């Protein structure tokens, strides 16, 4: 299981890096999907199969399809790639790299100093996840559902057909 964890993590990191450096938007999205699938495998090896399945169904299967749908509608061609190349100058990488370096340093510090525990000891199935989601965390779930309802009403308002006045 440990080897699986490290392989999947490596795939996730490499795919995310490739996603950042692609000029073509669809290729970038494809690498992001690979990264999400790798993260799902990581969840599975850590003993959270339910979360792994949701990661694939919701992120990789639904949200990224919508992204690709929009990109297809925009029909970005070679010109967009050239523009992207223009924007991604090396000097642009300095700020984000510095911030990422801080995070990496923190992770390294945590791994070397504090007592960290690898991989969860128990596997959590759908039942345990649902029980805590609809038990102690009920308010969180309800708030998220209200937020989604708000988004739904907003989308309906924007998408509704305005009737011509007679």
């Amino acid at each position, binding site marked *: 299981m440990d080897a699986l964890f490290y392989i999947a993590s490596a795939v996730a990191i490499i795919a995310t890096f490739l996603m950042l450096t692609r000029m073509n938007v669809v290729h970038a999205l494809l690498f992001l999907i690979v990264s999400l699938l790798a993260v799902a495998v990581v969840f599975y090896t850590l003993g959270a199969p339910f979360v792994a*399945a949701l990661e694939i*169904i919701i992120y990789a299967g639904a949200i990224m*399809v919508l992204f690709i749908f929009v990109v297809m509608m925009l029909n970005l061609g070679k010109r967009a790639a050239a523009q992207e190349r223009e924007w991604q100058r090396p000097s642009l990488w300095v700020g984000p790299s510095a911030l990422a370096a801080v995070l990496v340093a923190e992770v390294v510090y945590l791994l070397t100093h504090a007592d960290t525990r690898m991989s969860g000891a128990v596997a959590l199935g759908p039942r345990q996840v649902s029980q805590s989601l609809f038990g102690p965390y009920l308010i969180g779930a309800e708030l998220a559902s209200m937020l989604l309802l708000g988004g739904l009403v907003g989308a309906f308002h924007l998408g509704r057909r305005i009737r011509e006045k007679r």
Partner: protein
Amino acid sequence: MNPILKSLLILFLVIFIPLNLAAGLIWLERRLLALWQDRYGPNRVGPFGVLQVLADMIKIFFKEDWIPPFADKAVFVIAPAIIMITVLMSFTVVPWAPGATVANMNIGLLFFLAMSSLGVYSIVLAGWASDSKYSLLGGLRASAQMLSYEVFMGLSLMGTVLLTGSFRLNNIVDAQRHMWFVIPQFLGFVLFLIAGVAETRRLPFDLPEAESELVAGFHSEYSGMKFGMFFVGEYLGVILISAMITVLFFGGWRGPWLPPIVWFALKTLCFICFFILLRAALPRPRFDQLMSWGWKVMLPLALINLLVTGAVALAART
């Protein structure tokens, strides 16, 4: 038998049988369609024309495997592979007979839903990578259609999960010891059947292809075995959905007298023939009709089904 050898054998059969069945289905579909339309169909090559598929296979392997110069090469090549991978992965969770499952996961049903949601990419990317108007239109239609029908596909199955109390497909089959789920979950069955037809893009939901308007839709630019992969992938999808209907609503391998695997095969074959009959009988709807039907009729029905099932299950327990 040696357990490793046994699992290897199961693995081999789970890949080998559906792939060959999918090819055989092409012959079955053409013969059955011909029967219902009062013609003969392919009946020249071999007994009853069974070897027609073999002849077609040899032909398709020798076709030029052409990639259009304007296409996005890498994505164009990956797209047909995705549909085969996702459908074959889904077959790993199907319980064919007692003990004959590749992966007996506690999230089996969710795994099936996850793989079917990834299958959309194949069609969408094929449409996009071909860089042609008709393909792109087919890809756009496919993403909208499959995304909306996936939503209530998942919801329609939650009724059976509620009654069983598990996502594990073996438990779902065991829970149908006394009664098939098609009786308490009839609405769920109908919803899943319709969603399944839409997910496999079979008539009447084949708008991404729509020969009469879009040439061949998302696979207009494909030739040779790449086209063949889409074709076989579609038939694999039909087998998968039929097998899942059998498992979830018709008691899986349960049945008297005959051995379990025979019951499973018989039930699945019935639904495969039903899929073909649908193609022979129904016309194709307009795209806006398809979308509003999905969101305004099927989704509310799936939600009502889930609510009522939940209420009944709760009342029965207390």
